[in-house]
């Protein structure tokens, strides 16, 4: 089942008991953020939250925690709600192979129905904005799919980028914007600023659930997020032409904000409580001048709470970080079995691999550091054997505790690149990175006493079935 917009997905979540409508009147702050924060503290089955009675607003409709549980993430991919995490990642990886699926252009986008331009542009007139965390410098748009093009190659569909970045509202028609240098939009901005030009930009809010997943996904620079959305949805992604920039934007967006990043200008931004579980900010960042807002009738404002993990963002970017790393590693090393990069967008990564020969597992781990995503993340890698499930943390801890001889199996490399937001970096943007080889050494690496591992008995698998049957029959 492919959803063309946020609304149809919210209907499915409601039917599946995975959407909680909170109709009682509440305060924009701190209630909205506190409720979404709490959704991350009530277990794996947390629902999306929908608010439509917020004090002081006349027609606010706010959706939060839409991807904020494994059940909701499964439903976003059209899978049964109870699908296990490992199975969700494997299905994600299977669908990836259908890339590229050409999008379908539909120019009857519902957001064409309403617009504000020129001096009428007022973000507050369309969006029920609110603060998330105490130290945030203001109100943020933190779940947008942001579209920009390469100024040197504007007609290249693949280089047109769709990404999620943090965006602070600093005026009725002004936004502060964070392009992390490792991310594609930063390359677009650099090229524009080298030419003393503004960078046109389209910010789309309230998208279908797969669009939000691909927008947060580390993809190669010239690969189209729309073509990846088509692969993951199992159906072409519907797109339409944004009226002011001419960019390709999702057909089903609730709101499309267009304007420019003003070239060679920086203004104070933040702080903002980030996915790292720490605030970052108080830095001078690029500024967007909003020139047009298009929106559906009765738009739904989608926002995402993030703070100390786990919160919605960890579910949203968990599988979508695992799969690109898995595919990039496996392209060169088919021995790689699985990648768990679900911790802080892949700052820590666990890789399961078979070994070709002694030293091979360390090579696989080091390669993870130099993947495109690894340049900005992957500051700790744990490599485990092919029979260890990297999503099963007790198994991973067993490998760490039993297989690792720290003097030989822990490698620390100083002064590598990482996102500036990484709290342990010093200076910001630079960190050491650590590889822990928790695999069993193989020839000619003959270290340790691993010749007689205790394996599950041959009859155990049959007994698993018998025990389950006996328990079910009680």
């Amino acid at each position: 089942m492919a959803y063309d917009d946020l609304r149809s997905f919210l209907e499915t979540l409601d039917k599946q008991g995975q959407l909680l409508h909170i109709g009682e009147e509440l305060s924009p702050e701190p209630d909205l953020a506190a409720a979404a924060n709490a959704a991350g503290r009530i277990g794996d089955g947390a629902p999306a939250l929908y608010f439509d009675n917020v004090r002081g607003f006349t027609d606010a409709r706010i959706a939060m925690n839409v991807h904020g549980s494994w059940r909701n993430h499964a439903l976003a991919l059209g899978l049964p709600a109870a699908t296990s995490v490992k199975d969700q990642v494997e299905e994600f990886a299977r669908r990836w192979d259908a890339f590229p699926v050409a999008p379908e252009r539909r120019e009857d986008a519902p957001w064409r129905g309403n617009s504000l331009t020129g001096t009428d542009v007022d973000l507050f007139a369309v969006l029920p904005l609110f603060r998330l965390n105490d130290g945030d410098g203001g109100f943020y748009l933190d779940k947008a799919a942001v579209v920009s093009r390469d100024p040197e190659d504007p007609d290249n569909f693949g280089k047109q980028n769709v990404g999620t970045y943090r965006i602070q509202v600093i005026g009725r028609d002004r936004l502060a914007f964070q392009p992390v240098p490792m991310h594609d939009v930063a390359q677009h901005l650099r090229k524009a600023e080298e030419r003393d030009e503004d960078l046109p930009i389209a910010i789309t809010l309230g998208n279908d659930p797969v669009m939000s997943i691909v927008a947060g996904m580390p993809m190669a620079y010239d690969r189209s997020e729309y073509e990846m959305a088509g692969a993951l949805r199992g159906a072409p992604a519907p797109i339409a032409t944004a009226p002011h920039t001419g960019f390709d934007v999702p057909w089903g967006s609730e709101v499309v904000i267009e304007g420019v990043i003003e070239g060679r200008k920086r203004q104070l931004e933040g702080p903002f409580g980030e996915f790292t579980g720490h605030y970052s900010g108080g830095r001078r960042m690029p500024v967007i001048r909003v020139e047009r807002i298009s929106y559906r009738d009765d738009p739904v404002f989608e926002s995402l709470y993030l703070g100390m993990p786990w919160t919605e963002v960890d579910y949203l970017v968990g599988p979508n970080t695992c799969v690109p790393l898995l595919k990039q590693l496996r392209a060169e090393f088919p021995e790689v079995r699985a990648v768990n990069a679900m911790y802080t967008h892949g700052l820590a990564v666990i890789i399961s691999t078979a070994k070709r020969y002694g030293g091979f597992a360390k090579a696989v781990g080091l390669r993870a550091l130099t993947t495109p995503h690894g340049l900005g993340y992957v500051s700790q890698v744990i490599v485990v054997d092919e029979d260890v499930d990297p999503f099963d943390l007790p198994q991973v801890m067993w490998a760490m505790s039993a297989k690792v001889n720290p003097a030989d199996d822990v490698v620390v490399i100083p002064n590598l690149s990482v996102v500036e937001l990484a709290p342990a970096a010093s200076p910001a943007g630079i960190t050491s990175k650590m590889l822990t080889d928790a695999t069993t050494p193989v020839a000619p690496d003959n270290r340790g006493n691993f010749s007689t591992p205790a394996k599950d008995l041959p009859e155990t698998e049959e007994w698993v079935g018998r025990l389950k049957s006996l328990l079910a029959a009680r």
Partner: protein
Amino acid sequence: MICPRCAHDTIETVTASPVPGVWDVLQCHRCLYMWRTTEPERRTRRAAYPPEFRLTQSDIDTAHETPAIPPLLTH
């Protein structure tokens, strides 16, 4: 009124609640901090504003620029 975060005294009203008289959104002219008048005191009153998030003129003047503005291409 002063900014809860940087104590600057030029404050602008950015917008007012669609239901008249419930709240206003205010913004500091200097540090751009934005708040709603109905938020908890820890976000709206200088005396209650957390020290770790306060800003001074010096903090603003020395804020790191990111990403750095690149040199212009020479033709």
